[in-house]
């Protein structure tokens, strides 16, 4: 699916990604982990063709991202850390634009949009302006954009950042569903989330690859494993535990889409 060889990226004298090589295989959900500034987003941006590499090669579905970018990008759906949304459009208009830009056949566009809307759970808000949607729904529109055109690979860069615990659970379930049809790369800071959703782990630290393992092969605590590899101090664990507790407590609350709609409506009234 993806073959990365000796990938490096320098910003001036700073080496954000330092000679990393790994392979992404079909049919898995990959967790892409690392502390802040480790080079996760830079690597994802290079894989998706948003950024050039200083050295190395990236091949997506057999197409080099530098030499054959159009064919390589056809295989990828990408949700960057900040969803790239045109806020003056409705989700339907936005997805229609993305479908056309991705070259989806004219007679398939409507079907594709319906499918993406259903899978990302935005049926209730599909005809409202994106600027009036809550953050959770905006994230879902971003995910719908990524899966339009049935790309083989879906890359999600920290899709749960800034969401409330209930929204985090919803997005996490959505990612699990995506994993049934797509190969997914998920970047996240929440270790418990990665452990629950991903079956493979790639950990980078200071631009270097420090682990590429199956999640089930991690002996004991993932947090301990992560801290050992990245050399982080214990306080980082405290944050993770807090987030985990929030998520677990929210899991017991009943899910009600009307709440989210109400929230969206409240935001639009501000």
């Amino acid at each position, binding site marked *: 699916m993806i073959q990365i060889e000796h990938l490096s990226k320098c910003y001036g004298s700073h080496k954000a990604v330092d000679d990393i090589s790994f392979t992404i295989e079909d049919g898995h959900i990959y967790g892409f982990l690392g502390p802040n500034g480790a080079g996760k987003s830079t690597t994802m941006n290079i894989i998706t063709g948003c*950024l050039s590499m200083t050295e190395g090669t990236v091949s997506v579905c057999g197409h080099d991202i530098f030499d054959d970018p159009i064919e390589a990008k056809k295989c990828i759906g990408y949700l960057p850390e900040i969803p790239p949304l045109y806020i003056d459009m409705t989700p339907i208009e936005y997805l229609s*634009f993305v479908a*056309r830009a991705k070259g989806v056949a004219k007679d398939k566009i409507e079907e594709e949009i319906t499918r993406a809307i259903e899978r990302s759970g935005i049926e209730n808000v599909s005809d409202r302006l994106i600027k009036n949607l809550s953050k959770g729904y905006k994230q879902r529109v971003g995910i719908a954009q990524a899966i339009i055109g049935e790309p083989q690979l879906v890359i999600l860069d920290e899709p749960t950042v800034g969401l409330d615990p209930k929204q985090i659970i919803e997005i996490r379930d959505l990612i699990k569903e995506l994993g049934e049809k797509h190969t997914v790369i998920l970047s996240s800071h929440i270790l418990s989330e990665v452990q629950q959703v991903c079956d493979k782990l790639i950990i980078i630290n200071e631009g270097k690859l420090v682990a590429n393992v199956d999640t089930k092969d991690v002996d004991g605590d993932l947090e301990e494993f992560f801290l050992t590899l990245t050399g982080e101090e214990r306080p980082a664990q405290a944050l993770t535990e807090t987030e985990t507790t929030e998520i677990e407590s929210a899991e017991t609350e009943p899910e009600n889409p009307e709440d989210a709609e109400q929230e969206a409506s409240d935001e639009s009234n501000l």
Partner: protein
Amino acid sequence: MKAIYNRELDSYFHSGLAYIFGAFLLVFVGLAALVYNINGAVANFEYVLAAICLGFVIIIPLLTMRSITEERRQRTDQLLYSLPLNMYEIVCGKYLALLTVFAMPMVIVACYPLIFSRYGDVYLLSAYGSMFAFILLGAAWLAVGLFISSVTDKLAVSAGVTAVVILANYYASSLGDTIGGFFAKVVSAISLFEHFYVFVNGIFDISAVIYFVSVIALFLFLTVMMMEKRRYS
């Protein structure tokens, strides 16, 4: 390219910019036509176009300031970079949308000489020749504005720099005449407005047409290069 073109065109109409642009252009043309053709009883419509071309200082930045600057501000440029489109398609799609918004009020303006010709002896060839050059002049400024919008992520800077560049170009020939010598020749040769005035004087200048088209191609190319450069930074 068609997807980008349609989205851009929709956004100009949704945001109201297309209407504001059209209204400004039609008001400028209407006022100038009132002064020259109706009150002044002059049959040359080309003088109207020559009088309003300074209006580009206002209407071109109005249209181009958001074009790429807004993509960077909203971070939607990442979507463009990750879509299976090459940068030429993206830039040309955006430019053609700008050109369409510019051309729409010009369709109405194109009726003016015909209307005036019912009431007097209007020189239609020179009127439409000048209108053709006026559209090329606007198209060239749109390309320049698009390039400037790709350089910055601040709307005010994008609009301000575009306005200053157009204004400087408008007064450059006067400045050149004051200084004189080789400088005046260089300024006159590169001034877009000077090439337009040749048409106003009743000459259909092919070299000016080639110059306008070259400026458009150059600035679209520079815009593509500027967008590509961001991948490397």
